[in-house]
């Protein structure tokens, strides 16, 4: 965890050396633009039921075909990006923020460390989808509860990471020195600790984004996610399940969109990891 501080120039040269960040970033940006601009992309109301055009295969009129109650799969897929990205980005930001606080406090306050890390270990022992399922079963299926449940499953990873960085830093001469000369604690955090957690958090944050998008889709798919009326990719795949053999497009288009989104985020994460942690990049 000894990445030199990232200056603008260094970031620029690293970016050109790691095309994965570019490729993943551009794809991700396209999906974000599509999600925001969904109403202007040739879509119709994703909820509109058209009994006369049920189970239509893809053609020039409706690019992705229609589902079993005649809703437009293309429109639903584009609008579905909103759900996935909102859940993914919110979970990533929340997990990093909460995990950062827990990790920092655990790294500096010894009594809290013992308790917090025991709880974090136990939470990581519960498979993330099941922890989310249990939480949602108690609180009810809604977008907020899905975000809350996935965040709860992801926070321990961040907290452990931040704590590990703090514990290494705590013993470093420059942190010791800063403490000895009476640097205020907040300044110490701001100047020495946070810059050193930035790189690993950025990488971890992108992996959490990918994992949150996946878990949200899986939860919706098994009926423990966003309410069925919401056009999320997981819901669409779950609905298409029954007619999968005669109309595979209902499952495939949201499935492919989901896979590409996760792939893009993972590419960004891998690229960032290689760029920010030279130790991992051998030869």
């Amino acid at each position, binding site marked *: 965890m000894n990445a030199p501080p990232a200056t603008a120039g260094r970031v620029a040269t690293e970016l050109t050396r790691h095309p994965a960040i570019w490729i993943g970033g551009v794809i991700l940006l396209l999906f974000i633009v599509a999600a925001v601009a969904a109403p202007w992309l040739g879509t119709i109301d994703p909820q509109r039921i058209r009994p006369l055009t049920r189970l239509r295969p893809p053609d020039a009129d409706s690019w992705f075909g229609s589902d079993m109650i005649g809703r437009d799969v293309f429109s639903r897929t584009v609008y579905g990006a909103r759900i996935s990205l909102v859940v993914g980005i919110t979970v990533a930001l929340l997990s990093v923020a909460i995990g950062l606080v827990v990790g920092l406090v655990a790294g500096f306050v010894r009594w809290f460390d013992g308790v917090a890390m*025991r*709880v974090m*270990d*136990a*939470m*990581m*022992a*519960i*498979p*993330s*989808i*099941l*922890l989310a*399922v*249990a*939480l949602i*079963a*108690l*609180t009810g299926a809604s977008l907020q509860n899905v975000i809350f449940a996935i965040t709860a499953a992801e926070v321990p990873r961040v907290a452990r990471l931040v704590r590990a960085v703090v514990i290494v830093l705590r013993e470093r001469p420059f942190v010791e020195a800063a403490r000895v000369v009476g640097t205020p604690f907040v300044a110490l955090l701001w100047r020495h600790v946070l810059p050193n957690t930035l790189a690993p958090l950025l990488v971890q944050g992108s992996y959490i984004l*990918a994992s949150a998008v*996946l*878990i949200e*889709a*899986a939860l919706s*798919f*098994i*009926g*423990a996610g966003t309410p069925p009326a919401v056009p999320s990719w997981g819901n669409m*795949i779950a609905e298409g*399940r029954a007619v*999968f*053999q005669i109309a*595979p497009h209902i*499952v*495939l288009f949201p*499935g*492919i969109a*989901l*896979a590409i989104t*996760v*792939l893009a985020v*993972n*590419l960004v994460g*891998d690229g960032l990891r290689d760029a920010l942690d030279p130790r*991992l990049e*051998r*030869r």
Partner: protein
Amino acid sequence: MSYVLRRLLATLPVMATVALIVFSLLHLSPGDPAHVLAGETATPDEVASIRAALGLERPFFERFADWSYSVITGNLGQSIFFGRPVADLILQRAVPSIALSLLALLIAVAIALPLGMFAAWRAGRVIDKMAMSFAVLGFSLPTFVLGYLLILFFSVHLRWLPVQGYVAPEDGAVSFLRHLILPALALGLVYAALIARVTRAAMLEVLGQDYMRTARAKGLGLWRMVVRHALKNAAVPIVTVIGIGFGMLISGVVVTETVFNVPGVGRLTVDAILRRDYPVIQGVVLVFSATYVLINLLVDLSYALFDPRVRR
């Protein structure tokens, strides 16, 4: 011996904390635990009797102690929908899930080890980049999407394998395997991607070590060098990721059993979600978490097998 004992003892606090978290979820959540456990269709009398059994007026930790004791003795509560002990339901559904997980694990390791080793051996070359691109791709494909793609290709298009369903091993071993191969592949491929990445990194580290140069200087054959000298040294991080990835595998079981209609514990969970059968969900969470902890205990113990320095 003391190493084994120490690892064993170290899992106890983790298991206890897992139990505490699972218990707290129900008892500290805003709703009424008695209502949740009785189900939505329960009569006021039923709710009242469950409330009495829970002893909600007693202190939290006293109730937790009671509940823990009953869990240890195998009592995971009653299913609302089936009206039967949760433990029985899970046991009844265990075989398909265990078979699926083991086969997926086998497939994952069989793909990942050679792939990761080969990529490390040819690090930086085209073949390495291709292998690692495959790994990122595999890592990003959601299990259920992959499952449907496999069904579409192997079952619907080629008609080689059954679309869905499950046949118990005692009703025909071949049929059992034919039904299990696609779900295991869907489940194992994601897992394989994870293991392959770690295998490559661990092998790359080992291949640069001085003792590998010694092995080459001794004139050893490629196979002996890679498997005996390198792989054994790289084994600790590899089995570690196999253990950590098992959590992912368990989450995947829930989804995969739904895609392929396999009547296992995962399917039980999904049905329980739809029926709002909380006691079953709680029981499954406990059992799966315990399995995960147990697997990782085995992983810890296996370190001693690979690295003599751990045995102290």
